[in-house]
């Protein structure tokens, strides 16, 4: 029974190949768009997550100034001191390491090449805390740090811009007209969006504070938490300690704020999720348009085959038999369109991956979703034409020329 209905449906679709293809086109494009857009969103999410976790996830970042999420933060707050960093490491349980940081934008120069980049004055621990790896060379020693040695580790962007294909390690260059020796080159990490860890020069923080930037306060303290410790618990302890040290009264706002890496991960995850939904949502509009295309074709088909419907009713087809037949045809059109759309979406996602910098990942669930949705579109938009066919009066239908 089902087989014959299927055969009739397929035959009538094959008899009007061009028309069937045009009817499917909307669904093909719609499903293709949904698949490729979801693949793009998922790819972006993975990429962002990879980059964020490459910065280390069990980190707390202490910065001077109040929380800018609550209002305006002044840019030059000089409250965070080296002694604060030492106190955090000494007095707070669960802290594995701290990295006092000073940062500034500065001109770097190598012969005729020069550029503006971020100078980060950091301790040794910074490299491991932020999951930096060396492409070549070495990190500075504690002796070099303690003696404010003029040694530098350059990021990938700086190395390429100043030295091109030349190996920078061992070369001398200038930061703010101070001579430095390059001892290492960092492996590229990729742009994070809000800052690019490759566009940076790392030097020992005492050197930075005394010789380059000339400030006795810190721009940031990175705190690495011991394995198994709760980030927010340690965050509270640090807040209490710093309030005490900075002599902040109970009713006053803090002059520093603490960022939790887990929070940033959650935020980015939420953002990319929204991005994926948005892309998928826009793409699914074309799926609806495709459904309307199917409804249109099915209405034409029903009108064209009025006489056939009359004959079928005369020989004993019930209304629901007719309904089922035309519904099945609509589902076949949208289902076949959906399958082809998956192929198209796959091809599109693959070429985005090949020819652009974006990553695309096709998940099984987006394929399952597309199949389900295209079948549902077939049922939804096929129902009206099919019920029109089912309700035809057999006598009128038999008379139809």
């Amino acid at each position, binding site marked *: 029974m089902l087989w014959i209905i299927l055969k*009739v449906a397929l*035959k*009538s679709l094959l008899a009007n190949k061009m028309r069937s293809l045009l009817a499917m086109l909307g669904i093909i494009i719609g499903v293709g768009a949904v698949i490729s857009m979801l693949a793009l969103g998922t790819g972006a999410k993975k990429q962002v997550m990879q980059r964020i976790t490459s910065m280390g996830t069990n980190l707390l970042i202490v910065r001077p100034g109040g929380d800018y999420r609550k209002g305006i933060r002044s840019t030059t707050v000089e409250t965070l001191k080296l002694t604060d960093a030492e106190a955090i490491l000494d007095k707070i349980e669960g802290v594995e390491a701290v990295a006092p940081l000073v940062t500034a934008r500065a001109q770097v120069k190598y012969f005729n090449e020069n550029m503006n980049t971020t100078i980060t004055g950091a301790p040794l621990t910074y490299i491991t805390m932020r999951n930096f790896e060396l492409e070549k060379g070495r990190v500075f020693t504690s002796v070099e740090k303690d003696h404010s040695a003029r040694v530098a580790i350059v990021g990938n962007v700086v190395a390429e811009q100043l030295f091109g294909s030349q190996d920078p390690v061992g070369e001398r260059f200038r930061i703010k007209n101070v001579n430095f020796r390059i001892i290492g080159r960092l492996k590229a990490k990729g742009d994070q969006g809000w800052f690019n860890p490759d566009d940076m020069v790392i030097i020992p923080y005492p050197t930075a504070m005394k010789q380059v930037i000339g400030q006795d306060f810190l721009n940031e303290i990175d705190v690495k938490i011991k394995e198994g410790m709760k980030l927010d618990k340690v965050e509270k302890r640090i807040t209490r300690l710093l309030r005490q040290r900075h002599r902040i009264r109970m009713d006053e706002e803090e002059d520093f704020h603490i960022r939790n890496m887990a929070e940033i991960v959650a935020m980015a995850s939420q953002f990319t999720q929204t991005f994926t939904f948005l892309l998928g949502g826009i793409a699914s509009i074309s799926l609806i348009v495709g459904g309307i295309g199917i409804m249109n074709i099915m209405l034409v088909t029903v009108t064209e085959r009025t006489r056939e419907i009359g004959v079928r009713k005369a*020989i*004993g087809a019930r209304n629901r038999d007719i309904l089922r037949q035309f519904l099945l045809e609509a589902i076949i059109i949208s289902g076949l369109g959906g399958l082809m759309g998956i192929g198209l979406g796959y091809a599109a996602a693959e070429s985005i991956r090949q020819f652009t910098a974006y990553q695309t990942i096709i998940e099984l669930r987006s394929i399952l979703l597309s199949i389900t949705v295209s079948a549902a579109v077939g049922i939804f938009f096929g129902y009206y034409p099919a019920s029109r066919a089912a309700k035809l009066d057999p006598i009128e239908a038999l008379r139809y020329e």
Partner: protein
Amino acid sequence: MMIETRKLGKIYHLGKTGYRALDDVNIAIDEGEMVAVTGPSGSGKSTLMHILGCLDTPDEGEYLLAGENVARISGDRLAAIRNRRIGFVFQSFNLLPRLTALENVELPLLYAAQNHPGTAAAKALEKVGLAQRMSHEPNQLSGGQRQRVAIARAIVTNPAIILADEPTGNLDSKMGDEILALFRQLNREGRTIIIVTHEEYVAGHCGRQIRIRDGKVV
């Protein structure tokens, strides 16, 4: 009585005025009869055929089909009666294009949810002399052959009644004679046959004529 109608009436409403297509029609047809329903166009014979074929229901009166009053039933039950008790043959054959002769004949069995439609359909085609043409599509067959396929389709569910509406109207006289001979053969096998026609020649082949004029039996 295979078919019996009592005071059958059908009224069509055209705007405010009612038009009486059938008026007080009382007919009785025995099992195994071969009857012609004749009358000029617009006489109401088509309306009568639709009601006798359970495609339509009367507004007045009763229609007893093998003793059961079917004048007031509708929808799916009527479809089931058409499927099992009545075989239709049309003037313009009304075969489905793109289906083979065999598949066309199988159709009524599909709606009867029969398990092996192929065998019964093949037998019906053999009976009308088209055993060699089963896999042909309608456009590969002559008019006479198409009408034979339509007759095979009408008898495949083994109905008691065959209802033919101008079955020879689209055929030349030689093919028409063959089709009429086929109806007579089916009639000899015990089937009740009703042929609606306006040709005296066709009506002459039937045992009895029911003449309709202005919605009434004359």
